[in-house]
């Protein structure tokens, strides 16, 4: 058995799963210390379906706690950034593109030192130990407890980041160190930004992970604990302490993966219809397609592995205007005031929910309140919604083949039973706890993202080499060796570079090697 838990900003959801079946599912309120909500959720599972804590093999937790801490600039540690790259890169020091408010929130300090590599692995400059030692003295003097180290082209060669970390921790044993080569991919500033964010969250991560472990222990569960990462794979507790930033996009990822799992589809579009927007994403082989562009988090440009989600201004609270001949739906919405402003709730605003009720799609509030609504207007509004969502699915899919659609969220009553050439719309049970299920079914991943020289005729062998490396990384992270498969390969030849340099990204995933219960 395993337990999946989703700690959101508002709710903490938990599911108890055995293989593919959901044995119990509960929803509780999130508490500020996180642990209270989890303890309540675990007790809820016990009440719904009594289980032996010793029979739980693993607990997977997805949380938006860390991204919320950044957005709210709350509980961030004083942080320094050390970049190894001089004499290059000096014009754009660390945090150059950050909102001032967040630089202040982390009391951010930036240091530039010699080091870094060229794209082909040559050194830009040697690391200078005395420079790093001087940085250590500075950090000590200013009471900095967490540091982010970045080095130019560290995805190609991370030796300098590692050596700088060794020198700093030799002088400051308590210092928390985050390495950019462990956090992000190519793109110095974006990778460095993600690393600095990570460093600022390290202390909070320690507290939260301790809290999570305590609440499990309190419930008598001694199984290993994992946290969900942005790409829908798992990390163990030690990694989570060191790299909390890897949880940032786990919310939407778990939600999409959970929905797909519940509908039994590995490749599909997931449409999550809320009150104001519809979020549409695509899963291939059970994993969300990742955004290829930079993602801005709290005003900071990063290059995390984030799912590619298209948001449309269509939700249950969207305002409906016009007549049957020319109807518009959204993008403005009554939002959380739906329960006061919609016609079916006694309000005076025509919303998408009202037209769904008028058309007999759902029985919400007082259907009598929309009895006199023009039927052709209601049909026109729903047709408009179906067309817009259908277009968005068309837009986001990755191949010409029709893509099945899974609809979740409170506003999914707005969707018809069939959309475009996608056929029947799947509406799974338990979708309210899709995030927790997404956490519970997560696998272990391994990734490669580097520039490879590809000589003529060598493309296949280079690709094979990259794939094997990704598989090996997944196994090293705890995947069951036979179960690992490559789920994503992306190769982009680089312009203006000699030697047919190609950037290759490979992702492999496998099932979690379920260890015997510890102790």
């Amino acid at each position, binding site marked *: 058995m395993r337990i999946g838990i989703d700690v959101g900003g508002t709710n903490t959801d938990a599911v108890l799963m055995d293989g593919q079946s959901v044995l119990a599912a509960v929803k509780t309120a999130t508490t500020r210390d996180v642990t209270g909500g989890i303890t309540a959720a675990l007790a809820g599972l016990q009440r719904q379906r009594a289980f032996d804590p010793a029979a739980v093999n693993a607990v997977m937790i997805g949380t938006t706690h860390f991204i919320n801490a950044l957005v709210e600039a709350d509980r961030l540690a004083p942080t320094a950034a050390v970049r190894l790259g001089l004499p*290059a890169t000096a014009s754009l020091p660390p945090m150059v593109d950050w909102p001032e408010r967040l630089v202040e929130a982390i009391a951010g300090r930036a240091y530039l030192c010699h080091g870094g590599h060229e*794209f082909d692995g040559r050194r*830009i400059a040697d690391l200078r130990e005395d420079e790093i030692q001087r940085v250590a003295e500075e950090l000590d003097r200013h009471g900095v407890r967490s540091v982010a180290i970045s080095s130019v082209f560290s995805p190609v060669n991370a030796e300098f980041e590692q050596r700088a970390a060794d020198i700093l921790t030799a002088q400051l044993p308590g210092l928390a160190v985050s390495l950019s080569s462990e956090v992000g991919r*190519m793109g110095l500033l974006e990778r460095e930004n993600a690393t600095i964010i990570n460093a600022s969250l390290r202390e909070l991560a320690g507290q939260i992970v301790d809290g999570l472990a305590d609440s499990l222990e309190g419930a008598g569960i001694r199984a290993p604990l994992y946290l969900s990462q942005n790409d829908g794979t798992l990390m163990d507790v030690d990694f989570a302490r060191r790299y909390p930033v890897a949880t940032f996009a786990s919310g939407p990822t778990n939600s999409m993966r959970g929905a797909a799992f519940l509908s039994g589809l590995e490749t599909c579009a997931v449409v999550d219809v809320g009150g104001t927007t519809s979020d549409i994403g695509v899963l291939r082989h059970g994993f969300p397609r990742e955004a290829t562009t930079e993602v801005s988090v709290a005003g900071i440009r990063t290059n995390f592995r984030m799912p590619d989600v298209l948001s449309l201004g269509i939700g249950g609270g969207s305002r409906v205007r016009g007549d049957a001949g020319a109807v518009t739906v959204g993008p403005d919405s009554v939002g959380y005031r739906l329960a006061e402003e919609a016609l079916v709730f006694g309000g005076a605003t025509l919303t998408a929910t009202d037209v769904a009720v008028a058309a007999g799609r759902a029985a919400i509030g007082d259907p009598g309140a929309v009895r006199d609504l023009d039927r052709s207007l209601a049909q026109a509004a729903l047709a408009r919604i179906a067309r817009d969502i259908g277009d968005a699915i068309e837009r986001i899919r990755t191949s010409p083949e029709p893509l099945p659609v899974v609809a979740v969220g409170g506003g999914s009553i707005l969707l018809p039973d069939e959309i475009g050439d996608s056929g029947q719309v799947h509406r799974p049970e338990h979708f309210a706890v899709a995030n927790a299920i997404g956490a519970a079914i997560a696998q272990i991943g391994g990734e490669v993202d580097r520039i490879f020289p590809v000589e003529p005729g060598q493309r296949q062998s280079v690709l094979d080499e990259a794939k094997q490396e990704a598989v090996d990384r997944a196994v090293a992270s705890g995947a069951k060796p036979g179960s690992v498969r490559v789920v994503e390969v992306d190769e982009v030849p680089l*312009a203006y*570079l000699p030697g047919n340099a190609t950037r290759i990204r490979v992702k492999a995933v496998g099932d979690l090697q379920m260890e015997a219960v510890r102790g």
Partner: protein
Amino acid sequence: MAELLITEADLDDIAAGAAILGTGGGGDPHIGRLLAGAAVRAGGPARLVPLDTVPDDAVAVVVAMMGAPTVMVEKVPSAEQAALAVRALAAYLGRTPTHLVCAEAGGVNALVPLVAAAELGLPVIDADGMGRAFPELQMVVPTLYGIGATPMSIADEKGNSGIFDTVDNHWAERLARSATIDMGCSAMISLLPMSGAQAREALVPGTLSLSAELGRLVREARAAHRDPVAAVTGRLGGVELFTGKVVDVVRRTEGGFARGEATVEGLGDRTGERLLLRFQNEHLVAVRDGEVVATVPDLICVLEAEAGTAITTETLRYGQRVRVIAAPCDPRWHTPEGLELVGPRYFGYDHGTVRLGAGTVA
């Protein structure tokens, strides 16, 4: 037109417009935008002067980045490095530059002179050498006037610099490219020293302010829920060739250049039609249902269908909704000498040029 002061607030528009004029290549202007922002914050607004006000005895030099945009996002260039290139050229010339010039209005190089301007305290001429982006340094209108790209300088971030004095502008490209690779695939170059009289004759005027205007048009159209693509097309005096969805992208690398093709399947009025885009860093040829409808040297810009933002050849992906526009280039590119330098045959295509509004030219 009077001198303009470029402040940090203008840079987003210039970067967005330069991405459009980049016709899919020229590198993502984001890093250039950040560098120019840092330079303007430190050194004050950059001065942009109209081409027709540059005096005869001015000493104008191009300053540009050479290398791989993908390297530049990792080994971020510095303002000092750009200034070093200009100073190295000045020392060799034995003359002090009075104006900086933009090599290409498209992509990252639209912003590099603004980066160096603050460091050197020099004005930038509102003009460029191409009126768009091209991959090689001899592909500038001044080459058509017999103006030498050299003496030129090249500088890396380590403090290395060098001078080339070559027999023609093709050799300048070739030697500088080799040095750039040894410098880690990212170098700053300063070249094309011109008198003010030469600059006025041979540069493409008004292209930096055009970039700023294009960026502003897209931003304003979006805010007013008008069509940004139509605004861009109108400003460039171009035509919308196609609207559709990218259904296939094939890439390969040949000789250090990313070549490829993208197929766009028509939507709306274009349903049932197909557009094939052939690119080598930049979009070079557009073929609609088997007919070549646009080629270099005219501009072929691929824009995100609704937002109007430029899509580079490296970020083209299956499923993107795009609109493809063609716009006239500087007319001098359509002379026989111009086409020899940048026509479709130079890029290895076995057909003549299609000039917007004029049909096929052998």
